[in-house]
């Protein structure tokens, strides 16, 4: 998180869902706010001091950091949707989803925003190079890419990436209902169903014990597959 990149940050809102992220949350949202971006931190019913720390960070950047809190844990998808709604209410032009566990580089934000600002895309997915991933993760993500293609008919480089960007118009059209990690594939489905122009940008991913602990592994992958099958029969 070092490269200082100048960019017009007006109207750019980063939605950061956080569940028990007390070790990283302050640093991440303060770093983002320091660069001039707006941050919507969604505390998803954390049992640790994530909410208190986020509130402390808001004291330092009251006009840049916005904090909302789910009273109980509702999952990644639910937190992202809440954050996107808050960002839209605050007049966001561009909305970027950003993980709170420290796996994303802040210097990638201008890169994922550029296709939107240039009018080349309505939605952007930051693709993590699979060769940088630990083997178990890259395999699980390959399987998820295949499943996303089979179920939703869209082939993307990294269907499970947490770094995505949308124009406000695209964000208003996207309606995700998955509450858990299945939301990543559902974003692809919505992008496809709503005929949004998609761009994929290669991003850097930082692998630490914290970032490896969460995300898509075999168990999460199986849960997402189950959800995809059930969604086929959703009335």
């Amino acid at each position, binding site marked *: 998180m070092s490269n200082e990149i100048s960019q017009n940050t007006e109207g750019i809102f980063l939605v950061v869902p956080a569940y028990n992220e007390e070790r990283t949350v302050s640093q991440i949202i303060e770093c983002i706010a320091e660069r001039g971006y707006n941050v919507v931190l*969604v505390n998803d*019913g954390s049992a640790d001091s994530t*909410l208190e720390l*986020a*509130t402390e960070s*808001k*004291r330092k950047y*009251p006009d840049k950091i*916005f*904090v*909302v*809190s*789910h*009273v*109980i844990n*509702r*999952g990644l998808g*639910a937190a992202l*949707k*809440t954050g996107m*709604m*808050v960002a839209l*209410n605050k007049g966001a032009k561009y909305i970027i989803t950003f993980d709170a566990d420290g796996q994303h580089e802040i210097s990638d934000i201008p890169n994922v925003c550029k296709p939107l600002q240039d009018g080349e895309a309505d939605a952007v997915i930051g693709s993590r190079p699979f060769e940088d991933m630990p083997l178990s993760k890259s395999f699980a993500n390959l399987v998820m890419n295949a499943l996303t293609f089979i179920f939703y008919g869209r082939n993307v480089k990294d269907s499970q990436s947490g770094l995505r960007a949308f124009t406000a118009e695209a964000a208003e059209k996207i309606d995700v*209902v998955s*509450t858990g990690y299945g939301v990543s594939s559902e974003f692809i489905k919505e992008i496809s169903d709503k005929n949004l122009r998609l761009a994929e940008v290669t991003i850097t991913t930082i692998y630490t014990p914290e970032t490896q602990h969460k995300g898509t592994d075999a168990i999460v992958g199986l849960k997402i597959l189950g959800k995809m099958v*059930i969604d086929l029969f*959703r*009335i």
Partner: protein
Amino acid sequence: MIIGPFRIYQILLIIVMIIAIIFMYNRVRNKRSTPATFALWVVVWMVVLFFAFAPKISDPLAGFFGFSRGLDLLIIAGFAVIAYAGFRFYIKIDNLNQNMTDLVREIAIRNEIQLDEENDE
């Protein structure tokens, strides 16, 4: 096993039916269910009892569906009902889950953390 004029499964069915009907009756009294739902369940139980006490009558019906014995038809029908109930429960729980998420979201958005309010407390 036969006890008096009844087979044991027939006695068990009567006991389960009485418990289920009392349970439904209480739900209607407490306004948790409608009298129409109560009537529907009574009819369902009467049909089940009818076939339990006169299994031979179900044989022609079983033949119509391609089963050789009435009992086979009842067992398969029972499994189908249970599978359907499971599916209905899944949909209901999923809807409840979604409603809960909507509620939690609404509360979160209405109560966005405000520094001024905190200072007043």
